[in-house]
């Protein structure tokens, strides 16, 4: 993880030069790493209840992946990295989280009541977790949506002057 961090840090330092001038080699490497990071983040999300990880960390890893795309290909590349509009992801995340909370309410009258769940995942096998997982999923989506959106607007080229 720390290796990756240095990379991002290094690339942002000369971001001004990088934006709008994507390098071919970097592009390929980044795309490969991007998908690896996505998988890693999902793994973190799923095991979070039992091992280090969870919605926050998982979401942040995806965002780090976005950061890589941004560093490699500028804001155009960043926009391509998420197919759905970021505010939609963001709102859905909040909806999932509050929805989970409300479901508990409907079930037995208490907010955020959790129950045990067993989820079978394609590569990772069966994982024992709880309904709080969905809450964590909401967190994950909010983190992904909001940070992606922020990167989007912070990296936008300036629009022309409105000095007052």
């Amino acid at each position, binding site marked *: 993880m720390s290796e990756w961090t240095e990379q991002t840090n290094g690339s942002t330092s000369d971001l001004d030069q990088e934006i709008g001038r994507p390098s071919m080699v970097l592009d390929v490497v980044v795309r490969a790493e991007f998908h690896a990071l996505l998988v890693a983040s999902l793994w973190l999300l799923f095991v979070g209840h039992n091992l280090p990880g969870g919605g926050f960390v998982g979401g942040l890893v995806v965002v780090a992946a976005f950061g890589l795309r941004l560093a490699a290909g500028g804001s155009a590349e960043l926009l391509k990295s998420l197919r759905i509009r970021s*505010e*939609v992801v*963001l*709102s*859905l995340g*909040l*909806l999932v989280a*509050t*929805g989970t*909370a*409300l479901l*508990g*309410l409907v079930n*037995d*009258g*208490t*907010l*955020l*009541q*959790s129950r045990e769940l067993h989820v079978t995942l394609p590569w990772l096998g069966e994982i024992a977790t709880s309904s709080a997982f969905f809450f964590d999923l909401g967190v994950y989506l909010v983190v992904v949506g909001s940070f992606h959106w922020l990167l989007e607007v912070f990296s936008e080229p300036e629009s022309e002057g409105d000095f*007052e």
Partner: protein
Amino acid sequence: MNVLIILPVILPILAAAISTLLKASRTSQRVLSILAVTGSLVASIILLFEVKQQGPVVSAVGGWVAPFGIALVADMFSALILVVSLVTVLSVLVFSFGSRRNDEMWQFHPAFLVLTAGVSLAFLTGDLFNLFVSFEVALVASYVLITLGSRAEQIRNGITYVVINIVISIFFLTGIAFIYAAFGTVNFADLSLKLGSAEESLRIALALLFLVIFGAKAAMFPVFSWLPDSYPVARAPIVAVFAGLLTKMGVYSLIRVESTVFLGGGIGTIVLVLAGFTMVVGVLGAIAQNDVKRILSFHIVSQIGYMLIGLGLFTTAGLAASVMFIIHQIPVKTSLFLVSGAIEESAGTTALDHVGGLRKRLPFLALMFGLAAASIAGLPPFSGFIGKLSIVEAGLSAQSYAIIAVSLIVSVLTLFSMAKIWSGTFWGEFETAQPGDVLVRTGHRTMMGATGMLVAVTIAIAVFAGPIYALCEEAAADLIDPTRYIAAVMGK
């Protein structure tokens, strides 16, 4: 029926999420906001009745009983303030529909709803860290709202507002760290039990630290200067809801923490001294200003002083008076800001030098202002009089003559500055900041209706002051002696 207690928090958040998805359609956003706030209001009213019947209502979130989980608690104090706040929020929302469309960028609705949720959570939570979170929820929404539109003065004074509040929040966190280090818990009821055996000096030190933290949020002397600089730059509906709710959130938390947790804490004299300075400096600031919004902003500060008196006295009558005063202030202050908003929209400015003679053109608005101003100046038979009367009675029976003398002098000065607004805006030669007559736009009736509704609420508070004050006394009794509260929360 613990479901009710969570609705005022969860409904607005849910609506905020959907509202963002619906950002293309202003109408559906509006409908959604109204539905969410009305739903919360209905829930809170039912909650109030339940509290009235069976004492503090507690909901252990997730089924984890306190101090293990977060407890949401509605006692009389929180239920009363919640109801009044949500009524106010609803009228401001309606007002905003009539306000200039520029205010209603799509971000307005989600942010406004989140603000509502944050404020509701602050009133309902029984957990110190959760209180911090609720403050952040409300504050970040307020940061968004105060800078909505990105005008130059909004950004400049928004920076002041944001930075000061972040600093306060960080100290809030610091306070929580100290508390947790000393007692290993953040639940109000649990803390209340544990603080009893704590060392006196540490307890007072913590009580004072939280006095400054919440006092700064509430704009108490000497940490108030940020408020009159930052509030006036926001648009009318926004500053109206800030004025009504945000500082009261600080006062609420102050009273809640200092009484339920610190049990009075032995800081009464300091609170009274600060209350006196807050009243005086606030009202002098108001007199020095020449703009309706700024005058009103300074009055927020001044009135905070009144609310602190009851806490300083720390008697049942005193706390009941404070609760009564808060209940009266929320709608009155908000309606005054709504009036100032309507003035701004109709006459182009709220600077006293540039408007005048509006009474003849906008008689209804003048009447609304007159009623609300008389109320805030504490003139009978309006709600402010009941609030003031209860404070004066409580103070005199506790033989705190000095603070009451100060409060009465400040009351005259308040009258003076309200008369100044009246005389400068509604009397005199007709004048506006724009060419021609006052601008009566399509949304005018909506704005007037919302203002009227809120003023009607303040009058209702005056008319039904008897039963309402009885509820305040009940709230105060639970604040002075939190046994019932603790028993309800700890499940004993």
